């Protein structure tokens, strides 16, 4: 059932408009830019997108060990930094920092608000955890041949990318802070638009244009000059105090991307174009829980310094399935590194790799995949690209392998470390590690099988 949200009635007949700030582009992001947005951005909403592909699975593991855990580790620091400022100005917060435990995150946020003497309504969005439904359906995995059942007891979590509707619902019911687990990143931004403007949930073109706005804003600094600077072709001033973006959206979907005056970085046609295509495949079909967005007709126009107008986002009917992120245990990775420099560094680096390759065979280390890199030579783009380059002053040898057990993983790093006394001359700075791997794959679930809901919590 597609519903319509009643538009916020503020008695103004002019085109309604909201300003949405993007306070984080990933879980470990800088905190001051969000404070700057709250203080000087004249924003109505502050959104924190903090949930990577694998984060929910890792958080699920944390929650299995401690039922109170499983939400973003920086939740407390971020909330303490922005809650007083947002409360003072009436700025609503939307975030996916709930990770595997939105209720826990909401309770913690309510406690922080209370301790700060703030009276705020905190809501959690539930229902993204669809592990049960996925197990029942034995759904096929999209990335490789296999199904949920075949993952067996290696399966850790299954979380649906929820849409904007439950978030908009929470805002409409008066939430000052809305905390979700897995939700589509653009939906975190689309929800305030749906709430504020009363957009119909089947107005595909508006939802498509709103998704363009959300997509452009969700990676925060990536549209204000971060992940962009490439001197002298693309110079960006002030990256150390990069300002995070603001989206000015009107009820007809008009969009301008800007940032706080005087902050570092830049919003230009170029930064907006790069971010428009970031992580996009077919631009005519950007699949979202609420809409199939079409980015192919989008145009960008610089209308003033650090102000870029974005037009032309469209949409068609939403998909009948939701994308589910499935976390599973995927063995171990062992790794070792060591450096060589000066004359003949490259030859010694290559010799070191040969020695380790032979040692792993001789000592019978069991691995399903091995990788031999010379960092500074071929580790990023392979041997073919590096063949065109001249000899470097220093190289770093790196060997990494996938194993079934931690013990085998440790042996890979050991075979690099022993190069100190058994390998080529003058190897220094050896390092080794072994870790378990939680990997993520995707399945598609009929959307009716996910049942999102909103719960308000008290401290």
């Amino acid at each position, binding site marked *: 059932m597609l519903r319509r949200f009643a538009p916020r009635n503020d008695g103004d007949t002019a085109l309604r408009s909201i300003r949405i700030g993007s306070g984080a582009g990933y879980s470990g992001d800088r905190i001051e830019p969000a404070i700057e947005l709250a203080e000087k951005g004249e924003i109505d909403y502050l959104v924190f997108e903090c949930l990577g*592909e*694998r984060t929910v699975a890792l958080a699920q593991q944390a929650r299995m060990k401690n039922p109170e855990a499983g939400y973003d580790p920086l939740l407390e620091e971020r909330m303490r930094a922005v809650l007083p400022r947002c409360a003072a100005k009436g700025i609503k917060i939307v975030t996916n920092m709930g990770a595997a435990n939105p209720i826990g995150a909401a309770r913690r946020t309510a406690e922080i608000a209370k301790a700060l003497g703030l009276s705020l309504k905190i809501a959690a969005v539930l229902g993204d955890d669809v592990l049960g439904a996925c197990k029942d359906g034995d759904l096929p995995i*999209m*990335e490789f041949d296999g199904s949920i059942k075949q993952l067996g007891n290696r399966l850790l979590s299954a979380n649906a990318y929820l849409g904007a509707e439950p978030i908009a619902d929470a805002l409409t019911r008066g939430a000052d802070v809305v905390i979700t687990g897995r939700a589509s990143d653009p939906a975190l931004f689309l929800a305030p638009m749906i709430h504020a403007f009363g957009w119909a949930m089947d107005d595909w073109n508006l939802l498509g244009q709103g998704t363009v706005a959300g997509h452009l804003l969700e990676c925060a600094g990536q549209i204000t000059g971060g*992940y*962009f600077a*490439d001197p002298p*072709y*693309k110079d960006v001033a002030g990256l150390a105090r990069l300002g995070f973006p603001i989206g000015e959206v009107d009820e007809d979907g008009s969009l301008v991307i800007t940032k706080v005056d005087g902050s570092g970085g830049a919003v230009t046609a*170029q930064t907006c*174009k*790069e*971010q*428009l*295509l*970031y*992580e*996009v*495949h*077919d*631009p005519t079909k950007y699949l979202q829980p609420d809409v199939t967005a079409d*980015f*192919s*007709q*989008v*145009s*960008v126009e610089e209308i003033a310094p650090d102000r870029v107008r974005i037009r*032309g986002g469209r949409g068609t009917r939403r998909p009948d399935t939701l994308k589910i992120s499935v976390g599973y245990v*995927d063995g171990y*990775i062992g790794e070792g590194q060591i450096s060589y420099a000066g004359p003949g560094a490259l030859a010694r680096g290559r010799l070191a790799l040969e020695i380790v390759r032979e040692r792993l065979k001789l000592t019978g280390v069991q691995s399903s*995949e*091995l*990788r031999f*890199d010379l*960092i500074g030579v071929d*580790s*990023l*783009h*392979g*041997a*073919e*690209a590096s063949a065109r380059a001249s000899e470097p002053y220093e190289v770093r040898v*790196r060997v*990494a*392998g*996938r194993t079934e057990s931690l013990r085998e993983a440790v042996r890979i790093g050991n075979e690099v470390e022993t190069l100190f006394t058994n390998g080529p001359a003058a190897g220094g700075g050896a390092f080794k590690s072994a870790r378990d*791997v*939680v*990997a*993520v*794959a*995707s399945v598609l679930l009929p959307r009716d099988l996910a049942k999102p809901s909103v719960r308000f919590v008290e401290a």
Partner: protein
Amino acid sequence: MVKLRELAHSRTGDKGNTSNISVIAYREKDFPRLKTEVTSERVKALFAGVVEGEVKRYELPSIGALNFVMTNALGGGVTRSLAVDAHGKSLSSALLEMEIEEGTD
């Protein structure tokens, strides 16, 4: 010949084991040249040894951009890859090295 870097800028994104690289003309008038020169075949050849799957190209004339979508490109995806750059963030820099025919302007 000129490097693609002289004509276009680029950004890499990752989703699962799929990498996408945008190629965006600095000047609108160079877009037809990019369409002719930067083909999916050339991109696939450039990333031989990195990309195991297909390379598909999408065109966005309204912003003068191409989008290359490369499957099986990230060693199983960022969550399980053995690579130093598991996201493949650096791949755009390799693409900007591509040699392009000198224009007439």
